[in-house]
């Protein structure tokens, strides 16, 4: 790792896919505190990202590539930059709303009779289901051997 290095390694990943991986001359992102330009040798930094574009200047073509992210996190080391992109716009209240919805669904659809698990009933039911499958397999084995 020398100071004369003119590119940095950039990885943009989201939980669903890897978006970009390669060398870059310069990267521009929208951080939580404002627009950031990252050149090779930048001081180590961690920041949240706002939804916005990530502009990457490629070292060969000097052209700009643009990726849109809906927020996320950015980690900068002098020659390695990692963007952990979110796949959806995240905000505290949006997350909260999603959580409430999941909870409400659970309460509505699953008005179970008791909050205690009936282990005896459960294992009986499962044993039956598994036995059925086994029986079919056995019958098949017997049938083909004939």
């Amino acid at each position, binding site marked *: 790792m020398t100071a004369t290095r003119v590119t940095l390694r950039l990885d943009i990943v989201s*939980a*669903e896919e890897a978006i970009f991986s390669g060398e870059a001359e310069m990267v521009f992102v929208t951080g939580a505190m404002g627009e950031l330009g990252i050149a090779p040798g930048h001081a180590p930094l*961690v920041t949240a990202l706002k939804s916005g574009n990530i502009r990457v200047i490629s070292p060969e073509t000097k052209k700009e590539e643009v990726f849109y992210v809906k927020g996320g996190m950015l980690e900068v*080391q002098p020659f390695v930059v990692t963007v*952990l992109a979110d796949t959806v716009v995240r905000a505290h209240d949006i997350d909260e709303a999603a959580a409430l919805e*999941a909870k409400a669904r659970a309460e509505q659809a*699953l008005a179970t009779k008791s909050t205690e698990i009936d282990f005896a009933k*459960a294992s009986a039911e499962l044993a039956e289901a598994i036995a059925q499958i086994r029986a079919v397999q056995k019958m098949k084995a017997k049938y083909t051997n004939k």
Partner: protein
Amino acid sequence: MAVAKEIRAKIHSIKNTQKITRAMEMVAASKMRKVQDRMQRAKPYAHKILQVIGHLAKGHPEYRHPYLQEREIKRVGFIVVTTDRGLCGGLNSNLLKYSLQQIKKWKDQGAEINLCLVGTKAESFFKRIGGRILAHATHLGDAPKLADLIGVVKVMLTAYMDKQIDALFLCSNEFVNTMKQEPVVQQMLPIVPSTNEKLEHYWDYIYEPDNARELLDQLLSRYIESQVYRGVIENIACEQAARMVAMKNATDNATELINDLQLIYHKARQAAITRELNEIVAGAAVV
């Protein structure tokens, strides 16, 4: 020829069923490949986010996030991931059985159980047998988005922060190969620190906003979400693999049935012909 006709109708109907199972087998095979691809694509994120968490945790050894702290376990949370649809062999039954064993183990230690269900099979199962359910998500389809899971994960994370649960486990199927899927229970919270992590360079980070804890908090939540997402995706890969095998078996069984019926059909037909000939010969003899 009445018997022969009946048998012919039966063969015809089995052939139709066979066409369906064969189509389902092929659909499952192609879906499985797609989901496996998604599994691969989700991998770099989990890897990178762990790295960043590791770096941050190293930079702040004095701060122990609740997600990383072990505490006495009085209440346990389980995220049970099943499929939405059936016709996939014993996949769900095996998973539920295994999960139940794990749940019972905690129960016997006096822990209270809280559940989070993914998939309609888990829903209907726990509906029948009871259990305290905190959140559930169903009908995620073949290509669920991370966004579909934020809600349920958030409920469990909040429960953890509020000390409604002291540990969180994920029960899902592990994709070993096409023929083999295994139910596994993984600990999500408190996060088990990976032991094979190399001691890397220590970075004195600048934080923006100037609050490492908030950033770490966000990172850890994202990490758990991505882990649950991976579990759900992997479970779908298992579902498709199991369905593929089940449908292949069904198609093979149908072939056998058709062969047998064909034999019976020929016998019946020949018997009918013989009888008719007999009658003709007998009739001629009388004349």
